[in-house]
């Protein structure tokens, strides 16, 4: 609520800053915009930025520091014997206080009740302090901005600088998010590797991530050999690519080389719809339609097929990946210069000879890039395998067996109530790190291959 009011006030002041800045610039120029070194509206934006940016900076700092400042003040106001408590108990006490504040109750213990009251009064006065501070900064900023306005001021250049800074900040957000994710994965994974040796994790062949929650619990010592999990991921990815690569590539060839314009205009969007189907829909299609079909078909041949077979999950995942492969291959084939086609036709090659012997070799790097991106999709895909692949960590190459994948295990390890320091939970981070590394490497290779290819014909 208070944030909303602050925002509205700030925006109103910014708008006012814009008008004042423009008017002042015009007034200084004696109403002749030609005497200014920038258009009047740039002076308006200039002053508005002086109003807006410092205030936003102050607000950001405030919200970042508020909880720790409150914490320090409230804890500092506690009686000394409570302050002397161990850190963990003090933390519990502090969350009790916060709960009491949030629920509006008054605890029985008088010391804590005093702390709650202290907290209340602090957080009641905080918005006032913040409002006053923000207003002061806003007005000060506006004042400085207005004073700086003069006909010689290169307002347009200054605005340009701010725009550049804004763009830079936006583009680094993604980078910093990635770095943050990697670091959090890394630290948790390192904690995991302190509990379970990395060699056992990478090369162990038994995966059974049940650890005892209570010391007296029976039978759950846990085994963290991720070999079967990696093997399951590999098996399902291979099955998926066995579906996606030929179908995607052949349909790309048809689209790019054979299809009449009208067929292409209909088929290509239809194919790309496949990429737009939510993966959860693929998931229940795999689990409820494809898996029973494969099971029925297998048993009619006398084969023993698990009801959650790798084949069902992999095949449906392959269908999901088809548009990635076909769309990138299509681009690669279309980028082969027409002169190569004509060269082959001119020698008397037929269409399929031209495609096989000239166009595909020329487009190969782009196609390989598309396939690698498809593989990294397959490895990282979660929903289909969660619904259709099962949980049993079997070390097998039989596509009719149930297998599990890295993503499925991460999901199972982290759903439900968890302790965040057990090996079981931390294992998820180690798995996530592996997943991240593998897809990162694949993507880098794919992008490298695709870029090299582009250089060839431009």
């Amino acid at each position, binding site marked *: 609520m208070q944030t909303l009011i602050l925002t509205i006030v700030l925006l109103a002041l910014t708008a006012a800053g814009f008008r004042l800045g423009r008017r002042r610039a015009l007034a200084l120029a004696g109403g002749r915009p030609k005497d200014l070194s920038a258009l009047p509206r740039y002076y308006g934006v200039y002053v508005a930025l002086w109003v807006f940016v410092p205030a936003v900076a102050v607000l950001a700092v405030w919200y970042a520091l508020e909880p720790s400042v409150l914490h320090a003040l409230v804890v500092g106001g506690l009686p000394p014997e409570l302050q002397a408590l161990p850190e963990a108990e003090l933390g519990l006490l502090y969350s009790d206080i916060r709960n009491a504040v949030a629920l509006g109750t008054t605890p029985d213990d008088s010391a804590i009740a005093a702390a709650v009251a202290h907290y209340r009064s602090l957080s009641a006065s905080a918005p006032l302090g913040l409002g006053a501070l923000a207003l002061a900064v806003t007005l000060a900023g506006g004042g400085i901005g207005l004073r700086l306005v003069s006909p010689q001021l290169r307002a347009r250049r200054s605005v340009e600088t701010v725009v550049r800074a804004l763009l830079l900040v936006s583009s680094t957000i993604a980078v910093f998010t990635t770095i943050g994710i990697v670091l959090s994965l890394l630290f948790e994974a390192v904690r995991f590797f302190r509990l379970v040796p990395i060699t056992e994790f990478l090369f162990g062949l038994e995966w059974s991530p049940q650890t005892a929650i209570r010391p007296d619990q029976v039978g759950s010592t846990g085994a963290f050999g991720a070999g079967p999990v990696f093997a399951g991921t590999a098996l399902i990815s291979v099955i998926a690519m066995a579906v996606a690569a030929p179908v995607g590539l052949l349909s790309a060839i048809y689209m790019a080389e054979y299809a009449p314009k009208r067929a292409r205009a209909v088929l290509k969007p239809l194919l790309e719809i496949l990429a737009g189907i939510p993966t959860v829909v693929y998931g229940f299609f795999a689990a409820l339609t494809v898996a029973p079909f494969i099971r029925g078909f297998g048993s009619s041949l006398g084969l023993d097929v698990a009801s959650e077979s790798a084949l069902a999950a992999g095949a449906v995942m392959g269908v999901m990946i088809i548009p990635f492969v076909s769309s990138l291959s299509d681009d690669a084939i279309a980028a082969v210069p027409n002169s190569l086609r004509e060269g082959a036709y001119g020698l*008397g090659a037929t269409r399929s000879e031209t495609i096989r*012997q000239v166009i595909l070799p020329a487009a190969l790097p782009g196609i390989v890039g598309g396939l690698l991106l498809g593989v990294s999709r397959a490895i990282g895909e979660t929903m289909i395998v969660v619904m259709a692949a099962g949980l049993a960590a079997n070390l097998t190459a039989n596509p009719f067996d149930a297998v599990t994948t890295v993503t499925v295990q991460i999901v199972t390890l982290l759903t439900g109530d968890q302790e965040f320091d057990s090996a079981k939970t931390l294992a998820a981070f180690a798995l996530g790190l592996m997943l991240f590394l593998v897809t990162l490497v694949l993507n880098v290779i794919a992008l490298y291959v695709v870029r090299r290819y582009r250089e060839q014909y431009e």
Partner: protein
Amino acid sequence: MATTQTAPSSIHAHRASRRAQAKMSARDVNVFYGDKQALFDVALDIPAHHVTALIGPSGCGKSTFLRCLNRMNDVVDIARVEGDITMDGGDIYALDVVELRARVGMVFQKPNPFPKSIFDNVAYGPRIHGLAQDRDELGEIVFTSLEKAGLLDEVRDRLDQPGTGLSGGQQQRLCIARAIAVNPEVILMDEPCSALDPIATARIEELIDELREHYTIVIVTHSMQQAARVSQRTAFLHLGELVEVGDTQDIFTNPRDERTQGYITGRFG
């Protein structure tokens, strides 16, 4: 080029029987690209073992006509070709298009070597047409073709390297070798020197003159000097019509049509 000044007198003597000895012959050729007509009733004979140059301003239809001779316009969806085109008296539309293109080779404006080795580039045609019984014979064809294209000495030691790594002029000679390797009867050249520097151009022009002994050549060119240097017959096209055709020397010294005169003296084009 000194060699280009040779033939005229002997050509005059045979003028009367030209229709009979024409390698290829076009009558009433009309070409449409969608609704737009690109060629109007073009009639032209291509004499055997001569270099015939097609000249004219941009968009006059010279490339379009050239591409009719090996049915290259077939691959363009919107193109429609009408009229009679014959080779050795037989309708080219009666032939399988693959066979026609084996007999009528083509060299393009921009060198377009395949992304394969130099050897495989030249061997491509013989391989798809099954011209060689074994590896030795294939190697023989490749070497002879590179030799005829005047490229062998430059690439002898690196036949396994990619054709795209050669210089522009070498690439174009590689493309000529590739066309020759199929042992065609006619070679069509669509502005083969427009992407090359003057030295590479001179090299190709010499080559064209040498190739005339074995092949019938039709060349589209933007450069009138080139037409004068390499060809014995010249056809001038303008706005899709064949304005004038004759011995190269006559066309350049004594054009009958005003438009031809205007073009060759540089008044338009």
